[in-house]
């Protein structure tokens, strides 16, 4: 199976997030000025504009907010996958991320909105970055 398309660097907003995946860590941010949870990673708070953010590690537990199943994608990276899911996952810490629910027999039947999931880090052949995906909890 070919690797998934990987992030491209240098890119200062997302660099630390991806570095952390090498150690199976899922990072998010919180604003020290207004307490808003910030995701996808930025250098500023999307609620108040402050640059005073802290980075935190998520426990990786959450629920499927919504999903779909791509029945066929001819792009080389995905062509061999057959039917696969894309999903927005709501992590318990209060952020929503795009990912995929894996480890199910039939993605067209075995995934549901609200289902509890836990993060897993999928290793790639040609990169040390690991792609965060989610498995039924």
């Amino acid at each position, binding site marked *: 199976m070919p690797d998934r398309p990987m992030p491209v*660097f240098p890119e200062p907003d*997302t660099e630390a997030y991806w570095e952390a995946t090498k150690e199976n860590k899922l990072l998010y941010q919180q604003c020290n000025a207004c307490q808003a949870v910030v995701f996808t990673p930025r*250098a*500023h*708070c999307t609620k108040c*504009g402050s640059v005073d953010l802290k980075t935190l590690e998520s426990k990786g537990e959450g629920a499927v907010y919504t999903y779909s199943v791509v029945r066929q994608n001819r792009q080389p990276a995905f062509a061999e996958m057959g039917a696969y899911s894309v999903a927005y996952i709501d992590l318990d810490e209060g952020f*929503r991320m*795009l990912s995929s629910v894996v480890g199910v027999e039939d993605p067209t039947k075995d995934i549901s909105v609200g289902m509890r999931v836990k993060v897993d880090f999928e290793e790639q052949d040609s990169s040390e970055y690991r792609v965060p995906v989610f498995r039924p909890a």
Partner: protein
Amino acid sequence: MTTQKRRAAIVGIYEWPKRKDPDVSGMQIKAQSIKHALDDAGLDWSDVDAVYDAGDGEGAGMANIVQYLGLRPNVIDTTQVGGSSYEFHAAHAVRAIEEGKCQVAVLSYGSKAATQRIPIGTGGGRAGGSWATNMEAPYGMTLIANYAMVANRHMAQYGTTSEQLAEISVATRHHAMRNPQAVQAMHDLGVQGVADLTIDDVMSSRMIADPLHLLECCLVTDGGGAVIIASPEVAARAKKKPVWILGTGESMSYVTNDGDITVSAAAQSAPTAFQQAGVSASEMDIAMIYDSFSITVAVMLEDLGFCKKGEVGSYLEGGRLRYDNPGGPALNTDGGGLSSNHPGMRGIFLLLEAARQLRGESTSQVPDAKLAVAHGNGGFLGSLHSGGTVVLAAD
């Protein structure tokens, strides 16, 4: 200088201090410059209600700076004419402020031309990752899967069914069959079964990305068109009866940590447009709603105010949106993107068919049509998308 009208004023400024700054991105320069300029003005992040952007900064497609910043402006303008874009933005901001559409406009610029060694003047960004693509690329989210995620959430939240969404495909196909250009288009494009559709036809068409079927997805066509908009003075001497623009609204929406994906940008742009027009959705004879997919129309019918959020499923039942059904507005009477015309960005055709209806020239004419709303969607409904609402009227 004492007699000239004070139209609008620069109240905050900031210049990025460094001229060689390898570790920041153009997007970060923009976001942080905006914050500094707001501080200079004594204004808050949440005061901003207009964003002007020339697409500079890495991966800056479709004004995604709005999502990057985390703002929800009422005016979005991406005029890009090279280096003078910012003077154009200033001119446009003054007009928008004078019209009463906004009060606090941000203009910003960010570039790494030195570090990235971009030849200035080619206007090209380097290929590679951005703040957005780096978080999406590994997952293979297709366009249709993106829209499908909105449908699945709507179904889970409200019990909406595919059969109900299919009514949209059935109605637009019925209108397309009455439009000779649409019939020709479907033949030329090799559509199987150029005829009216039943709900069963839609449900048994191939599943593309759950829960959206093939017949819930728009055609891909060649095509285009043009619109002339003129002053009342010019309209008085134009050949045909004028189609007045009474109200407009703009917005962008995107996925957030706590947002409702079933609520689209229309929920912000439509109230602005209807309020300016002094009319409400219930008075509309025609609804030209961007039909890239069935779900696009469905959420927008709710957000435009034709029915309550969550209730579009039952609203759609029984062919309410057919041109000859008096129980609701006529939807996409040209046949829509679903069955007539969608070369990639369909918004202009919404204005064209609304104008035909209000002139009495449509192939599925609503008798005595007086009011129409055209709502365009751009981008990805399940992530970053734009909404533009235009309310039109015949004398």
